[in-house]
């Protein structure tokens, strides 16, 4: 089956079919093996970052440049007309007249969808508040496939702030295509929201809730760590108690499956100690690198230069 993403906005993971996801991953794999430095020559990407970002912005911008395209944009809305009160709709409509594709991040939820209504040029959502971050999910899937040599029927633990973490929500939704067995490891107050659990049930995905990494660490192929943010807790004493429970150390990896890979969307603060970096299980730096190839694949596909 041919997948055609020409002109498509990439805003939300549930809008991508299994075939479309697999086509993006296949193109990313091919670009990782065989760089195509002229593929997007004469194309310009607008890089519109209304809130701070390191990895997402830099990997979008390098992805475009490594395919021969050019980048214009901003990393701080204070230098744009937003500061004068211009709406996102107006800004996007105008930027869309200058560029061929827009990669954006914005603090408000639904901003990428709104931007897509202002322009015919494809919008690639690099994060809209706590809502979606689809390119992160695609690079997560690419990385899982790369380190496990498959995507189907894996045992995957998601650890940390599962209530507010958009990354884990989108990843859980995407994994429904691949029959994953999911383990949710989080403090009770930060467990996976009901609406996601209902979606998983409707798709017959098996999942369970846990309060300690040790309870599941020897049962999984992927340990996907995320950060627990102190500001989510009204009671800071409670936070101090909890934060040390969700720290992964090298010692904890002694009896795990040999193929276990540890992933993290980064930045990490203290939840993976640095002694884990030297183990064969650490795969989070490769994961961050893969963002480059997945974003290259998406840019080339929405601009009609790669299809599968």
């Amino acid at each position, binding site marked *: 089956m041919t997948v055609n993403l020409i002109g498509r906005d990439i805003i*939300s993971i549930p809008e991508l079919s299994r075939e479309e996801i697999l086509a993006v991953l296949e193109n990313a794999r091919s670009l990782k093996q065989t760089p195509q430095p002229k593929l997007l020559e004469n194309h310009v990407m607008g890089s519109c970052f209304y809130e701070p970002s390191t990895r997402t912005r830099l990997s979008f911008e390098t992805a475009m440049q490594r395919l021969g395209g050019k980048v214009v944009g901003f990393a701080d809305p204070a230098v744009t007309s937003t500061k004068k009160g211009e709406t996102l709709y107006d800004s996007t409509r105008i930027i869309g007249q200058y560029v061929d594709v827009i990669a954006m991040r914005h603090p408000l939820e639904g901003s990428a969808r*709104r931007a897509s209504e202002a322009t015919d040029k494809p919008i690639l959502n690099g994060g809209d508040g706590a809502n979606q971050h689809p390119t992160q999910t695609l690079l997560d899937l690419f990385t899982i496939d790369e380190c496990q040599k498959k995507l189907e029927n894996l045992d995957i633990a998601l650890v940390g702030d599962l209530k507010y973490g958009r990354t884990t929500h989108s990843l859980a939704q995407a994994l429904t295509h691949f029959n994953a067995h999911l383990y949710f490891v989080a403090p009770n107050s930060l467990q996976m929201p009901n609406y996601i659990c209902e979606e998983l049930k409707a798709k017959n995905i098996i999942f369970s809730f846990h309060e300690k990494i040790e309870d599941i660490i020897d049962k999984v192929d992927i340990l996907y760590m995320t950060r627990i943010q102190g500001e989510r807790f009204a009671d800071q004493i409670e936070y101090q108690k909890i934060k040390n429970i969700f720290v992964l150390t090298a010692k904890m990896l002694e009896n795990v499956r040999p193929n276990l890979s540890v992933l993290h969307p980064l930045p990490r603060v203290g939840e993976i100690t640095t002694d884990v970096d030297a183990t064969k299980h650490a795969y989070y730096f490769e994961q961050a690198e893969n963002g480059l190839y997945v974003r290259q694949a998406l840019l080339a596909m929405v601009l009609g230069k790669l299809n599968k």
Partner: protein
Amino acid sequence: MQEPKQLLVSAIKNGTVIDHIQAGMATKLLQVLNLGMHKKIVTLGLNLPSKDMGSKDLIKIEDKELTEQEANKIAIFSPLASINIINNYEVIKKFNVTLLETVQSLIVCPNPKCITNNENMDSDFKVHHQNNQIKLQCKYCEKIFLQSDINDYRA
């Protein structure tokens, strides 16, 4: 001529009776239909006895014929509501409200970080009706709300 029945809410000569409103929902409907601005008589019955529903609410609006489009706005709050158009004390038209798949420009998204609450734009919700429960999903922030989570409307 038939003997007039004893009515708990007095009859109207011309206008619309919204009947079989889920008990507790009538005040929301006043807001949604912007009936606070209606210059003619509006009478309201709350928690009236009902054979089918146990108890129900009812609204009578003098000198206003509710359109189907307006009536369908009611459906997300009370999908069983029925509309009676009255002319000279007689029901001349009767229809049920229809639950539409999407609702535009009616609901204020309860998520303060939703773009719809920060730019001058319409809201847009997808309506899911499962197991007698109505859930509303914002097209923009993608959050899913129960009808009871919705506190504000754009009349």
